[in-house]
């Protein structure tokens, strides 16, 4: 199983990388991790600080599962590719972000997930191994979210197009 780990373009997320390195001692997965400015050495996983957007796209295609911080960029890209995704929120109490907005983000998305959805939320890092083992056998044709989002009649893109075209 090929795993891409990504912590985004800004801050490192050592707690996550450490946990994955630990888990991988027993699972022996093919792990490629984008770790940000993090000079620590990690056993058993391949790391890089940053990926260019083309390199990142290549790695997204390559992997079977993405494990990431709860960043919207990663969630959107995995949704578009219908790619298995486990998100772990950064916590302000560990200095991983300025505030706990990643907890707010997952609170909005967690209700859309289930044991059969391709997206999973990992609130407690100790559960990561179990979630990984649950998501691994799922078919890639499963739904990204199991519960459809509430009906939304507004279309952001159309609104912006109309407004800009009308005013130009």
């Amino acid at each position: 199983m090929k795993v891409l780990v990504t912590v985004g373009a800004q801050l490192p997320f050592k707690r996550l990388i450490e946990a994955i390195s630990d888990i991988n001692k027993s699972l022996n997965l093919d792990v490629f991790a984008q770790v940000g400015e993090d000079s620590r050495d990690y056993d058993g996983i391949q790391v890089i600080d940053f990926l260019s957007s083309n390199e990142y796209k290549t790695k997204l295609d390559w992997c079977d599962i993405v494990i990431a911080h709860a960043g919207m960029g990663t969630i959107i890209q995995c949704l578009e590719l219908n790619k298995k995704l486990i998100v772990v929120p950064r916590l302000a109490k560990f200095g991983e972000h300025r505030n706990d907005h990643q907890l707010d983000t997952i609170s909005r998305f967690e209700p859309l997930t289930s044991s059969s959805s391709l997206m999973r939320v990992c609130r407690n890092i100790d559960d990561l191994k179990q979630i990984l083992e649950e998501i691994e056998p799922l078919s890639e044709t499963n739904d990204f979210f199991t519960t459809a989002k509430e009906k939304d009649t507004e279309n952001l893109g159309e609104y912006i197009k109309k407004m800009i075209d009308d005013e130009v």
Partner: protein
Amino acid sequence: MSKKLIAIASTGGHYVQLSRIMKQANFDSNDILYVRTKVNANDTPSFENESLIEDVSRDTLIRSPIIAFQMLKLILKHKPKWIITTGAMPGLISIVIGRLLLRKTMWVDSIANTKQLSASGRIAKKIAHKTLTQWPDLVGENVQYKGRVI
């Protein structure tokens, strides 16, 4: 050739959202100049209508003038009617420069901000012509909901 709009955001989640919103808006690709921040010194544009600027965050505010100057140059060169951004700090700076150069400006707050507007968004709503949130319950003075990216 002048552009209809400049779409600018920090590389990462902000830029992914902006790109997706612009794709949904379905503009002619030549109408838009995309601008994102450099991830590192070796970062280069990934397609023709993309330009890169330096990065800045709340911790490196001292770099703001560099970005302001880079945006000034891009706006004068491409003469967009609109500047649109999803954040973060470089987007806010672009809104300010855009206003100074008499452009129309729009702030679309990131969908990651589910409980209140981002810190930059709370400033942007006082400056931008249009401020949108992606969560209906965050609508307020000068802040509208017109849909979300996913």
